[in-house]
């Protein structure tokens, strides 16, 4: 028995019962969601503290792997599960007309995200992923404008396309190996998936799971959705949910797919993502879409990092992901009141000096100005790229550096407007206290990271090392062999 499953089960239970609770007491319905998430976060933290170097595996229903479904908790997965839970808590969606539904959706998102981060079964990952997708449709559409419906529908089309492809990829994997358990796949993959079929399965799943990770060809939804969804939802999607999709791709790369071609595919798509995302952000004239495009670019950097073979790549991708996890939600929260045309921002620093200062700090970190954490994260990507000594990897370095100067350009265009003293016709509204407090909290995390760089890097390194430790994964899950016990 392990309490870890409660991180998934409790939010689902609360979400199911929320409308019934609301009938009894609307106050209870308002507070129960955050309370449940606090409880699950506490469970996650307690498991984290006892985790140490030994990952844990839980079999749902007590059935032996690979027959049942495995829940695999290492620091890597648990980190993102906690990020999802705490992130949802911080960015608890507010909606005027649909508060009850929004609360249910937020609970579902937290539970699903934790499950996605911890799941050790291929099809189970697919189901979790689909649920998270559906929940994000709801969160986007909960704004209730016709634009949010249209962008949800377009998102749904791309997502549905990707999900079906991922399903086909899973079919190919099961066809080749006869198992869906990641640990067992890790055992048999070198023998059975190191061929064209395995590569095809990887590409199909990459496209499928890449939709949420804002992978290059399937990220057309990003600017529309982030421009039409409420800013808290955008912050959740761009900050946390995209990282979870990335985590799946990382897991698949580490455990199942070892083809060198797979890395090349990632590298090329990553480069294209960075180039298109940053150029589009440079051209964007409204803050929401600028941030959305820049998020595409950042995820492109993570894909480039993933394409570095071995431990260094996972470490670098993890560092960039964690940095982005703090940074993007804060930026979207600031964009809550500053959304719309950049030109309208003239002089906004006057009404909200704290927010403006914070925006400067976040921008500097995003560009990668030393000594802010963003710089070290990017350096972790660039350095191993340079040692690989291949033209395409060098080109990736060039793209990342060029992207940094583009970022500097467009972000400081915004900063300049903020500090412009010419008044605009419409006076600026100050930020909501909760938004600003959350953003300051996240920004404070960034600054704190500057002073704890070395221990932080060590910790991330150990997390990455644990994530890439395939043999421990197999030993912990210990799937029974399929040979012999068949008629």
């Amino acid at each position, binding site marked *: 028995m392990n309490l870890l499953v409660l991180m998934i089960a409790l939010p689902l239970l609360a979400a199911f019962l929320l409308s019934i609770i609301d009938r009894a007491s609307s106050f209870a319905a308002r507070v129960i969601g955050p309370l449940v998430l606090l409880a699950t976060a506490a469970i996650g933290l307690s498991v984290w503290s006892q985790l140490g170097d030994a990952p844990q595996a839980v079999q749902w229903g007590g059935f032996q792997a690979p027959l049942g479904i495995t829940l695999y908790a290492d620091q890597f997965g648990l980190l993102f599960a906690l990020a999802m839970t705490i992130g949802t808590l911080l960015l608890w969606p507010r909606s005027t007309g649909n508060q009850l539904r929004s609360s249910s959706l937020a609970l579902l998102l937290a539970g699903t995200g934790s499950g996605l981060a911890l799941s050790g079964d291929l099809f189970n990952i697919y189901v979790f992923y689909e649920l998270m997708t559906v929940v994000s449709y709801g969160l986007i559409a909960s704004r209730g404008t016709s634009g949010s419906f249209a962008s949800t529908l377009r998102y749904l089309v791309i997502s549905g396309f990707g999900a079906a492809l991922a399903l086909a990829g899973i079919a190919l994997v099961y066809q080749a190996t006869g198992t869906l358990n990641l640990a067992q796949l890790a055992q048999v993959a070198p023998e059975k998936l190191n061929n064209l079929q395995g590569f095809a399965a990887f590409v199909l799943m990459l496209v499928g799971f890449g939709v949420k990770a804002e992978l290059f060809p399937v990220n057309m939804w990003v600017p529309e959705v982030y421009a039409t969804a409420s800013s808290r939802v955008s912050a959740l999607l761009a900050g946390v949910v995209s990282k979870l999709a990335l985590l799946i791709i990382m897991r698949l790369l580490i455990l199942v797919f070892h083809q060198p071609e797979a890395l090349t595919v990632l590298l090329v798509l990553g480069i294209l993502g960075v180039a298109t995302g940053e150029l589009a952000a440079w051209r964007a004239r409204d803050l929401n879409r600028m941030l959305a495009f820049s998020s595409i670019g950042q995820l492109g950097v993570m894909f480039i990092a993933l394409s570095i073979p071995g431990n260094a790549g996972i470490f670098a991708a993890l560092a960039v992901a964690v940095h982005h996890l703090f940074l993007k939600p804060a930026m979207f929260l600031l964009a809550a009141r500053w959304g719309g045309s950049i030109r309208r921002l003239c002089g906004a620093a006057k009404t909200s000096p704290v927010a403006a200062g914070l925006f400067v700090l976040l921008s500097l970190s995003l560009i990668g100005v030393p000594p802010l954490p963003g710089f070290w994260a990017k350096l972790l990507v660039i350095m191993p790229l340079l040692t690989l*000594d291949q033209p395409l990897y*060098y080109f990736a370095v060039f793209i990342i550096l060029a992207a940094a*100067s583009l970022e500097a350009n467009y972000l400081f265009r915004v900063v300049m407007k903020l500090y412009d003293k*010419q008044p605009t016709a419409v006076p600026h509204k100050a930020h909501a206290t909760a938004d600003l407090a959350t953003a300051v909290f996240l920004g404070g995390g960034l600054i704190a990271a500057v002073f704890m760089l070395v221990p932080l890097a060590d910790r991330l390194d150990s997390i990455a090392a644990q994530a890439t430790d395939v043999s421990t994964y197999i030993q912990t899950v210990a799937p029974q062999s399929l040979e012999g016990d068949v008629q």
Partner: protein
Amino acid sequence: MHFFELLVELLLMPILAFVIGLAMVLMMRRIGARIQRRVGPPVLQPIYDIIKLYSKETQISHGLMHEIGIIMAVGGYIAAETLLPVPGLDGLADKGGAVTLAYMLMIPALGMALGVGQCANPNGSIGISRALTAMLAYDIPFILVIFGVSYVYGTTNLAEMITIQQQQGVASWGIVQMPLLALTALLILPAIMGKHPFEIYVAPAEIATGPMVEMSGKFMGGLFVMQCFQLYTAGVIFTTLFLGGGLYWITFLPKIFLVVAIPMSVAYLFPRYRTEDVLRLMWKWPMLLGLIGLAVVMK
């Protein structure tokens, strides 16, 4: 002991850079004067200028951000100096490398943007948005150069680059090995230095608008100091990448002065470019040259 040595180096490097930068400013002005058939300022003029600027009353200050901006602009360069290896002083060069340097050189422009953005002057904003665009214009070819060079030497460590070039003689100098990239760097050098003919965003003295109007007294002094560092940095980077750096100041100094002098004397012959044209120019010719150069060295 080791730590103390490093501390001295970190202090010494910016100071040296400042002094040499002052000399470069003087040289640049003299060149400009010669081309325009004037006598030019006396030897100590840059020092007089700084004293004058700092002793003048600061007429207007736009609050904290304004000052932070200038501090960032100068500080960025000071930090960059500690990353640039010069004869006898390595500083942080073997820790940072070319990539860190590329990021560092972005800071001053951002600092300027931050500071000037705070001013009420709309023309200041225009000037800064031009400055940012100009930065974008030269940064992309600049990065192209940096990574072509690191590809050839197989390292991003500037100190190692110097060692390689010094040990293997002139034939291994960057300018011989990759002339096209060197030419690219030379083309963008005036833009990196923020000098003629790519300086419309600064528009010093002649035009009564632009960011400089808001910079009086100590701010102007800060910018003047920054200019010294700017010239010095550009010269040292080029020398390190392409001219073998230097083991002794006696060979190193002529190189960096030459690097600054040559593009300056040519650049003074051209009229100023508009910012859009800078972007077009930079992304066309130096980019093209850089890409060809890259193709040549990567084969």
